[in-house]
């Protein structure tokens, strides 16, 4: 690729990304009332999206090969347990992550 082709490629990647970020706001601008269906999606999507992001983070975990997802499962349980116990975001996240790193280095 020439420098120009590289710049065009990067610009198109940036444009594609920004379309996905700005499109909803451009389509449903404040001037017209947002359709009820879209308002419903705005309330219904977040919980589904957070679930989706958790799975997305674990997408490369294989249950049938490697460590069978055991370190991920244990670290998830530690994160969930700490959060149910203390309700302190940073403690739960740090605890789960340290647990995962220890498992990766010492056990698996």
């Amino acid at each position, binding site marked *: 690729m020439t420098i120009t082709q590289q710049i065009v*490629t990067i610009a198109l990647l940036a444009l594609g*990304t920004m379309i*996905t970020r700005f499109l909803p*706001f451009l389509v449903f601008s404040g001037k017209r009332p947002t359709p009820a269906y879209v308002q419903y999606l705005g309330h219904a*999507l977040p919980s589904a999206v957070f679930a989706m992001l958790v799975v997305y983070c674990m997408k490369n975990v294989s249950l049938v090969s490697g460590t069978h997802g055991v370190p991920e499962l244990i670290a998830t349980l530690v994160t969930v347990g700490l959060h149910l116990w203390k309700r302190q975001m940073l403690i739960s996240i740090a605890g789960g*992550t340290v647990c995962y790193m220890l498992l990766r280095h010492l056990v698996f």
Partner: protein
Amino acid sequence: MIKEAFKAAFPHTVPVFAGLWFLGLAYGIYMNASGFSFVYPLLMAMFIYGGSLEFVAVTMLLSSFAPAQAFLMALVIQARHLFYGLSMLDRFRGMGWKKFCLIFGMCDETFSINYSAKIPDGVDRGWFMFAVTFLNYIYWVSGAALGGILGGLVHFDTDGLSFVMTAMFIVIFMDQWMKDRKHWTALIGLVCTILCRVVFTAESFMIPSMICILLCLTFLRKPIEREGGLS
């Protein structure tokens, strides 16, 4: 007002710093090892600002010129932002010039914090969200630039650190779960994504997952709205 917002926002972004900064560093080092000057990761981090796409972009830049494919790839990989936008339509209303920055910098992590964080009384909502967006953006861009400059000079063992992002999304998911009185939408998200991951590959399951979630939410709208309990 700005200082208070940053003070309130910073603790929420600490896990993102741990995750994004090191990931950015790794990305910069990868670009450097692939033969690119640090200007590339710096500019790509600034203008694309989307981790997974930027990693894919390295391979694209090393292949032959394929503009249409690059553009489509960007739309497909980043399509989940459409969901974030739909969820933020009301919350970004009346934010003036900040609205542009909030949308421009709305990555997975920033959206999740801005949607779910309980903003303390007396802290301006717009400035709080701006602070979260700004801090996360700086973490990623500085990490990518530094990685590109240092390149092969650094070796650190961060194996397993990436779990910090997973843990953050788990915690945010739990907080949202406890806020909702009914959990149908969370379960729809969980089941659709897991099923699609089983059926498709790790590279291709996100678009089917999003379609599946959208279909379920659309067809089950009546019962979900009748049950209520969405926060």
